[in-house]
């Protein structure tokens, strides 16, 4: 017998049940408080004018239209570059790579890339794209940095998805005389689309939230960027500047709320999209 036992097993089970439930509640409360606070404080600032006009007096007045455009711009560039690279790498890993050491090495590479702090990406963006390649502070430089950050996410999610495609699909296709490429493009990839989309949107969500990585690459212009070589100021960077330079608390809350709403919409719509696609290709 355990003499130091303070409570009987049943009593400690009851106590721990309460502690466990509390941990769940606390986690939920943290989310509700942060989301609720930012959205409630931010909503009054959000209206059509805020969304569709340019800022005045460095953002003290006016809206955030150029920032929305900048955010969309850099994020789309990032996704367009990172998606083929990430999915291509995942296809290589699941369909071609045979050497276990190489596979581990490539995975470790992606893990490392995903683990590099965003501020280091920021410095690299400055040293490589802005200065070395001479692209300058621009939407393109910012988009390229974000593409590098998005790459490992898209790769990792796609690889997991591709390797979970049943080999019976491939056998069926080969059995009909399909080539490897036909099998990959007509059977394997379509079946993996939901997973790949999830990965891409996850990467997009992170890219659109990122400020530290782009702050030294994209510039900080308040104007609407037109060409790829114009500087811009994505939403998170705008929020950072508004808040730390004490320009306008009200507009900062508005910007934060817009950012959160974008992220929420992205997350929810992917879930719905993927579910529908899944239902369609797998029957009910």
């Amino acid at each position, binding site marked *: 017998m355990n003499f130091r036992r303070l409570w009987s097993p049943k009593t400690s089970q009851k106590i721990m049940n309460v502690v466990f439930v509390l941990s769940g509640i606390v986690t939920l409360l943290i989310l509700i408080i942060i989301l609720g606070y930012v959205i409630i404080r931010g909503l009054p600032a959000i209206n059509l004018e805020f969304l569709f006009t340019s800022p005045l007096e460095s953002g003290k007045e006016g809206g955030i239209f150029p920032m929305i455009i900048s955010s969309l711009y850099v994020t789309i560039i990032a996704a367009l570059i990172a998606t083929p690279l990430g999915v291509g790498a995942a296809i290589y890993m699941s369909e071609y790579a045979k050497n276990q050491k190489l596979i581990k090495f490539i995975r470790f590479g992606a893990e490392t890339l995903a683990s590099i702090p965003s501020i280091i990406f920021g410095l690299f963006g400055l040293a490589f794209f802005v200065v070395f390649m001479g692209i300058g502070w621009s939407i393109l430089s910012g988009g390229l940095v974000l593409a590098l950050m998005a790459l490992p996410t898209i790769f990792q999610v796609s690889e997991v998805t591709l390797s979970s495609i049943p080999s019976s699909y491939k056998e069926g296709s080969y059995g009909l005389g399909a080539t490897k490429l036909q099998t990959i493009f007509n059977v394997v990839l379509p079946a993996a689309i939901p997973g790949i989309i999830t990965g891409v949107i996850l990467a997009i969500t992170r890219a659109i939230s990122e400020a*530290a990585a782009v702050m030294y690459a994209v510039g900080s212009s308040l104007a609407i960027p037109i060409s790829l070589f114009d500087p811009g100021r994505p939403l998170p960077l705008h929020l950072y500047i508004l808040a730390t330079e004490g320009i306008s608390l009200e507009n*900062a809350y508005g910007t934060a709320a817009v950012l959160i709403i974008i992220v929420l919409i992205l997350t929810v719509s992917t879930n719905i999209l993927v579910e529908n696609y899944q239902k369609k290709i797998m029957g009910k």
Partner: protein
Amino acid sequence: MNREKINEFLIEKGLFITAIFSIIIIFTILIFIVMEALPAFQEYGFFRFMFGMEWSPNDDNFGVFTMILGSIFVTFLALMMAVPLSLLCAFFMEEIAPNKVKIFLKPVIQTLAGIPSVVYGFFGLTVLVPLVREYFGGTGFSIFTASLILAVMILPTIISVSQDAIKSVPHDFKEASFGLGSTNWQTIRLIIFPAALPGIVTAIILGIGRAIGETLAVIMVAGNVVQIPGSIFDPVRTLTTNIALEMGYATGLHYNALFGTAVILFIIIIILLIIANYIQNKHGMDIGGGTL
């Protein structure tokens, strides 16, 4: 047919290049960061740079040790807060909660992970800093405030990776334990927790990596004074915030010294990754794409 073979060959090589692209990028990043940092290391000396206590760019003093300590303090305190809560929550979701609750909590964790770090920082700045100022004195910009925000930010990482670890504990273990008349809590404490421990340690290391690498959320609440803090309510400057604060106007050796700060950060992250990988390989587990 021959052309088809050539096509397939070219595509395979093309895919191979995309596969090693991540590795090419890492080396490029490393080379560029180190190259830009080199002048600072050469002029100032690497050891003086790393272990020097004085950072005053105007007098050409570039010791980052205070910032290294700052990063460690902030991360350590964040872990003290985040680890117990996230482990409890992970076990709750995997072992205790009914399925409905689990399905409800999953997107909660997802959303927590999805909130932009600037928004976390902004929330800290406008809500937590005044609260800390009121209840604990000082300016409110402090190690404690930064840790609080970081704790929330690493919560989803630790929860989801631990969940994977808990999930991978064979069902037989649990059945055997229940079969002997153990309660749920005894089974968790004596059977599942030890079996999942390597995964849980990995989860914590990943959390450490995120906390050490976080920049803007910390900048907004930490006060950023270069000093060895006397208490957890004193302001602090970390490695990441040092870079972000001064990069905007740094020139010459100062500019190089900031890249040097990034090199130190890089080294820390690589060490953490290697530890995580070592644990993973040793215990032959797969943490499903978990990253710092």
